[in-house]
């Protein structure tokens, strides 16, 4: 399982009812269901991802996240998880509101634009960063709202949200000592657990 998913796995409590936005092939939900008795649904828009979820026996609903979460009731889930999708949404701030309307707690992961490799790309070489976490060229990227570890913290503060936990992923590792101290510089993937106050 992807490094950020391993970390999220530990953050989901036993028996929780979760909504996994952009659940991909459903591997996280499958493991959570099998090993932690977690229930819930994945939302996905990619046809292959949906078919793979169905193969795994993961509940998946075809849904465009830009349409919001209007069909889900207030406080109907324990947690809403969204991995690697925030940066591709039309209004990431509105989605954050929606997530924390549907559940008290949200887990969000996104590529940290301030990662040192990205900085070198842009700062020294003068090109838009292309990396493992941001593999697309500037003209065909689905990532239309790139942000940094610091940016997200700032948004959470503005919204009065509590940051319960934060972590970073670098490559295939869960985290490195350097990324603990300077996450904005050494974290490739930002991982946040937030709660409404």
């Amino acid at each position, binding site marked *: 399982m992807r490094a950020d998913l391993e970390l999220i796995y530990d953050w989901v409590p036993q028996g929780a009812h979760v909504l996994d936005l952009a659940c991909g092939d459903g591997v996280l939900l499958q493991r959570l269901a099998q090993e932690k008795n977690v229930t819930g649904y994945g939302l996905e828009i990619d046809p292959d991802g949906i*078919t793979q979820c*169905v193969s795994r026996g993961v509940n*998946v609903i075809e849904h465009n996240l830009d349409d919001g979460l209007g069909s889900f009731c207030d406080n109907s889930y324990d947690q809403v998880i969204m991995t690697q999708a925030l940066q591709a949404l039309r209004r990431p701030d509105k989605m954050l509101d929606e997530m924390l309307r549907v559940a008290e707690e949200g887990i969000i992961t996104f590529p940290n634009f301030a990662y040192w490799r990205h900085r070198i790309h842009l700062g020294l070489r003068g090109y838009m960063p292309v990396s493992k976490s941001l593999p697309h060229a500037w003209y065909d990227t689905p990532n239309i709202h790139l942000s940094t570890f610091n940016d997200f913290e700032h948004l959470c503060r503005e919204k009065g949200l509590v940051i319960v936990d934060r972590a970073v992923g670098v490559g295939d590792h869960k985290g490195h000592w350097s990324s603990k101290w300077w996450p904005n510089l050494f974290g490739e993937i930002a991982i946040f657990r937030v709660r409404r106050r």
Partner: protein
Amino acid sequence: MPDSDTLAFVDRPADSVGLVTPHIAKFDTPLPLACGKVLPEYELIYETYGTLNAARNNAVLICHALSGHHHAAGYHGSEDRKPGWWDAHIGPGKSIDTNRFFVVSLNNLGGCHGSTGPVSHNPETGRQWGPDFPMVTVSDWVVSQARLADQLGIERWAAAVGGSLGGMQVLQWTMTYPERVANAVVIAATPRLSAQNIAFNEVARQAIRSDPEFFGGWYAEHDTVPKRGLKLARMVGHITYLSEDAMGSKFGRDLRSTDLNFGFDVEFQVESYLRYQGDMFSTAFDANTYLLMTKALDYFDPSAAQSSDLASALAPAQCPFLVVSFTTDWRFPPARSRELVDALTRAGKAVSYANIDSPHGHDAFLLPEPRYHALFNAFMTRIARELNIDEMAIDETAREETL
């Protein structure tokens, strides 16, 4: 144990179930209907494909749509031009894989293809039932289907599957007999008809009922059929089955001849097509059955008894659902399927939903399409895995000999 109806059949594709023969099941226990009347006795015609395994846990129920019937796959004779109506999805190696599953497909009560209906003999009067045949609902059908399952020794369906009106029967199964359905596949359906849907049905009914040959439903006793009415009903229905794009790409504004003839004969290809479809249908389908089936559609609304709360109506359901819609379906649009999915998630039921991109409108549920196939197949394969349904050992030598 009922054996498969399938025989080896030369000159047919390898993924066909081959030649099939329908069976008749007789029921003597009176069936109380939702309308308050009681059907004292009745028969259901059905076909089966594949073999019921020793554990009797590999049976799949196929529920048909408005003008459907029991002949869902394979051929009745070597002169058949077309296979059953869902042959694209039922057969060896297909989504509903007959190497694994034992498929049961019946004609519903009130139908005109062999099950007891308006064209059957009414034992009380000695004449045809005609318009006297009681109104049957989706719930009535499900009860009658459960009795068929009893006769076949099927305690629980591995899956109940249906498109359009068939999907509504599947939904009803999960509420009436939750313990008898292990999985539900609801395709291109709706939890209830919209005002527009009912309006189209009413136009169809009025077309039939206002035909001078209708005789209040007693046309058979006048040795006639309300052909014009049925034809119109089918033409209107057919428009709602196709998408605007599908019609456009199939016919455009193409003319039958090179010039306009400034008259009311067939000029555009689409007119010719609709008239042909209508004509075919008007001699092949019973008008009273058509009236009954459209009413069954109109009446279906499981949420009605729960102050319009579909989630509470679905509370008894226990099985995982697969809900599928098609992007260009404007008869039962994706939003109606989504309504069902949202009610299921609110009720905390296991459900997966996909909205398949297809240009074919409502009819898409009948047709093969790669993504539709992959998804349907993934769901059915998962069922086989979870229920430990193995592929039947196929005796290759016997197969080769018959071929």
